[in-house]
């Protein structure tokens, strides 16, 4: 990695002319005659920077960044798999990228959205999909609003949602945004949902349902899943599947068959669209037949004249985003599903689990694994048993020195000092072995050179940063 770089604002000068504006070829008027002077601005404090300076600046910044194309990215629960290049190519075709959301000749986009809905329905077992949500958390909100509307229509007052303590933070936050209060369910010693507590909570009568991810954030499959969904249904509740961890289930087991009624997917996790440094994502939501009338508008329906989009939907929760979801991302996911097909998707599920378990077995030889059983897509290690007060954060920072990205740390919250590792199916054995070797070396360093770990990272553009000062005295711009 490179040395530090100045901000772009320090690179400007006043003599630069950009070449990105067409020549004005019409007669013009005095601006003040069109728009009154008091509505016009004076300065724009953004420098003019020459093209070559801009390119060098951002290329340099890109070198100070790590992506999946740089190497293994074992960030648990984020499914950092390889992003096929054909996805990028297709999304940039003018026939997809230059289409206005309000134009009439859009049959291709509607067909594509319709086609991927059918594929996702088959993959999850659901009956209908909306492609509107812009991200996973956005999909969660949609799912929860559907639950809210469903009980409103039935005239039943159910204003609570059960969320296990191992859940992603978005789950309780989304439920709250939909107006629910949250019952947090403590996981049992196996990291699974305790059936007796669930039964008790459901008996209160005001619980609308449960949000669950399975495999859960510990990476293990909840073996009682059928009993869980049955209990919730028995008391008139709905079961929501957080699809963040769907990758290892592809072609193996479907949320609908587990008993779920609503599911959101993360196209940027399971279906290989790039994470983009934190978006744009896409979070389609699938539902069982009974809930289709509640999906957001607009929706696409098939008529005699082909596909048309409509605002009409009996009990729709309404619109949740302008226009049509993150279509540019949806195209990429569609390309991915077509490329893999039935066999390919199943292999994704299998190899994701194979890779995770191989890594687990090897790392377990040194690091503490609180939930010791066959995992699915990921597993959680901790800093327990490490000498010299070496912490999870120290380990994570030292991994950066070895040229890899670190696992998700201090999550899930139910495990102290958690390191959540998810290799995904696209890592080769060689890549896994290299990572294992680095983790072994770091383990040895914890015994022999603990100071090195505590002062890590040493090989990155900057050393460990002062997060406390940053939060006490926020500097958010220049």
């Amino acid at each position, binding site marked *: 990695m490179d040395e530090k770089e100045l901000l772009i604002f320090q690179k400007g000068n006043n003599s630069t002319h950009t070449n990105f504006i067409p020549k004005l070829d019409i007669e013009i008027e005095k601006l003040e005659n069109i728009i009154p002077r008091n509505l016009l601005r004076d300065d724009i404090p953004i420098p003019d920077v020459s093209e070559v300076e801009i390119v060098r600046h951002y290329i340099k910044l890109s070198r100070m960044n790590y992506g999946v194309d740089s190497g293994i990215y074992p960030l648990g629960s984020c499914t950092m798999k390889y992003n096929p290049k054909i996805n990028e190519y297709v999304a940039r075709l003018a026939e997809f990228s230059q289409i206005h959301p309000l134009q009439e000749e859009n049959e291709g986009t509607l067909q594509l959205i319709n086609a991927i809905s059918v594929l996702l329905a088959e993959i999850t077992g659901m009956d209908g999909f909306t492609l509107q949500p812009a991200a996973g958390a956005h999909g969660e909100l949609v799912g929860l609003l559907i639950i809210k509307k469903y009980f409103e229509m039935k005239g039943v007052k159910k204003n609570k949602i059960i969320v296990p303590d191992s859940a992603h933070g978005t789950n309780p936050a989304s439920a709250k945004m939909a107006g629910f209060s949250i019952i947090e369910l403590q996981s049992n010693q196996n990291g699974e949902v305790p059936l007796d507590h669930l039964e008790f909570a459901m008996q209160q009568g005001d619980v609308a349902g449960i949000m669950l991810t399975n495999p859960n954030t510990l990476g293990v499959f909840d073996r009682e899943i059928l009993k869980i969904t049955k209990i919730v249904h028995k008391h008139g509740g709905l079961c929501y599947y957080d699809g963040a961890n769907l990758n290892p289930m592809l072609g193996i087991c479907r949320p609908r068959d587990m008993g779920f009624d609503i599911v959101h997917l993360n196209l940027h996790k399971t279906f290989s669209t790039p994470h983009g440094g934190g978006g744009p994502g896409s979070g389609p939501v699938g539902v069982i037949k009974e809930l289709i009338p509640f999906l957001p508008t607009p929706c696409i329906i098939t008529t005699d004249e082909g596909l048309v989009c409509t605002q009409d939907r009996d009990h729709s929760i309404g619109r949740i985003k302008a226009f049509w979801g993150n279509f540019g991302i949806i195209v990429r996911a569609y390309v991915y599903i077509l490329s893999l097909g039935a066999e390919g998707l199943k292999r994704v599920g299998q190899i994701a689990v194979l890779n995770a378990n191989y890594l687990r077995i090897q790392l377990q030889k040194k690091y503490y694994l609180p939930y010791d059983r066959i995992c699915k897509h990921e597993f959680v290690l901790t800093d327990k048993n490490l000498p010299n007060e070496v912490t999870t954060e120290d380990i994570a920072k030292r991994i950066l020195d070895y040229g890899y990205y670190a696992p998700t740390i*201090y999550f899930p919250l139910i495990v102290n000092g958690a390191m959540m590792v998810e290799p995904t199916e696209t890592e080769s054995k060689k890549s896994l072995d290299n990572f294992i070797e680095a983790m072994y070396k770091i383990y040895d360093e914890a015994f022999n050179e603990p100071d090195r770990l505590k002062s890590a990272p040493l090989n990155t553009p900057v050393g460990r940063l002062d*997060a*406390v000062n940053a*939060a*006490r005295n926020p500097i958010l711009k220049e």
Partner: protein
Amino acid sequence: MEYRFPSELKYLQTHEWVRIEGNVASVGITDYAQHQLGDIVYVELPEVNTTLNKGSSVAEIESVKAVGELMMPLTGKIIEINNILADKPELVNSSPYGSGWMIKIEISDKSELNDLLSVEAYKEVVNAEKK
């Protein structure tokens, strides 16, 4: 790790301390609580003159990686807040029972004092949690 718990104070299960002086109660978080949260970066205090019930959330205490709540130990009116914490939230870490105090309450119902914990009772709470 040894924590300080002054014996003249009263405590809550949720890790607040209370100092009673006549009709006024000063409130802050305990040494144990500040340690659990880590470096405090921000404290959001209520407006003066609000009246709140015992057990309701009255302030939020943020560290880099966690958020804690300050619960009303007693029903009453907020008569003073520690404005210095806006610029110096670190006082909660360095002096949790002194300059890191958060609010002063005019007590509405003195009978509620009986529900507060003694230092011995609170130490048991902490010991149980540490396990």
